[in-house]
């Protein structure tokens, strides 16, 4: 229904802005409905403005900026429908050191309410974890887990 969709849209947009500003250290962003008349039928575009830059369609941002913006949106949706745990697979791959650091701060902040399981190749992200599981394939084609806790 129209009301349900609008409510979800507005709530997610608020979360989106809040999370984006934490990940980028400022700036602005928002989802836009492509047709204000047909909100139950139209598509959605994303607009983002990293600090100091102009607001533009997310497609015009850099590789890392796009990835971080969409991650902010997906987390915003999770916050609207939370579930006590969150599993991330290599979301930090295209990020530079400063963005990885802010990503880590957000995860640590959210971890009071949410349990995180994070697949990563990034050393900084690994440092934030309190338990580490190493997956190996010593025997080709067969995975094993070696666990370590910190």
């Amino acid at each position: 229904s129209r009301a349900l969709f609008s409510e979800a849209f507005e709530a997610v947009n608020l979360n989106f802005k809040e999370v984006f500003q934490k990940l980028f250290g400022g700036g602005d962003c928002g989802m836009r409905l492509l047709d204000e008349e047909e909100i139950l039928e139209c598509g959605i575009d994303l607009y983002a403005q990293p600090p100091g830059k102009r607001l533009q369609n997310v497609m015009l941002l850099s590789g890392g900026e796009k990835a971080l913006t969409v991650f902010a949106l997906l987390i915003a949706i999770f916050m609207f429908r939370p579930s006590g745990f969150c599993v991330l697979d290599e979301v930090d791959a295209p990020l530079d050191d400063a963005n990885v650091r802010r990503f880590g701060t957000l995860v640590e902040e959210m971890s009071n309410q949410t349990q995180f399981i994070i697949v990563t190749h990034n050393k900084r992200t690994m440092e934030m974890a309190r338990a580490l599981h190493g997956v190996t394939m010593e025997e080709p084609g067969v995975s094993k887990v070696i666990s370590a806790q910190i």
Partner: protein
Amino acid sequence: LQLEALELVGFKSFAGKTRVVFPERITAIIGPNGCGKSNLFDAIGWVLGEQSARSLRGQKMDEFIFGGTKKRKRSGLAEVKLHLKRTGEEPLFLSGVELDSEEVEISRRLYRSGESHYFVNQRRCRLMDVQRFLEDSGLGYAGYAMIAQGKIDSFLTAKPLDRRQIIEEAA
């Protein structure tokens, strides 16, 4: 509900019995390319009833069952068990019966025949019972809680109308 441990055998590249614990607020899964990290991710989604996780990577049923290597025979079944612990006080029901244990165990098995079995606290039930149970216990939205490798890229390349679906489903 919070995650305590994951057990799997015969699931994708995890041929042998494997156990992974989650005792902390933040757990990292690391390892070289192709070693099985995303397969572990898939196992969590799969046992929670997610049918679509990475379904681009081969749609056949036995995508999930260990397919064998030169040295190891393929498995006849894939099984994943997720151990959870209750954090709240509210009662949890499974098909109308109240669960009184603090520990909750959800299992899913897939045989090569295509037959699927589901279990909650070792009681056999249907997929819809598991899904109903998960919804009631606040885990019904596992889809939003899991960001798969490549999900961000596919969202970016998706048409505006496909993107809207993600909000629609949450609404």
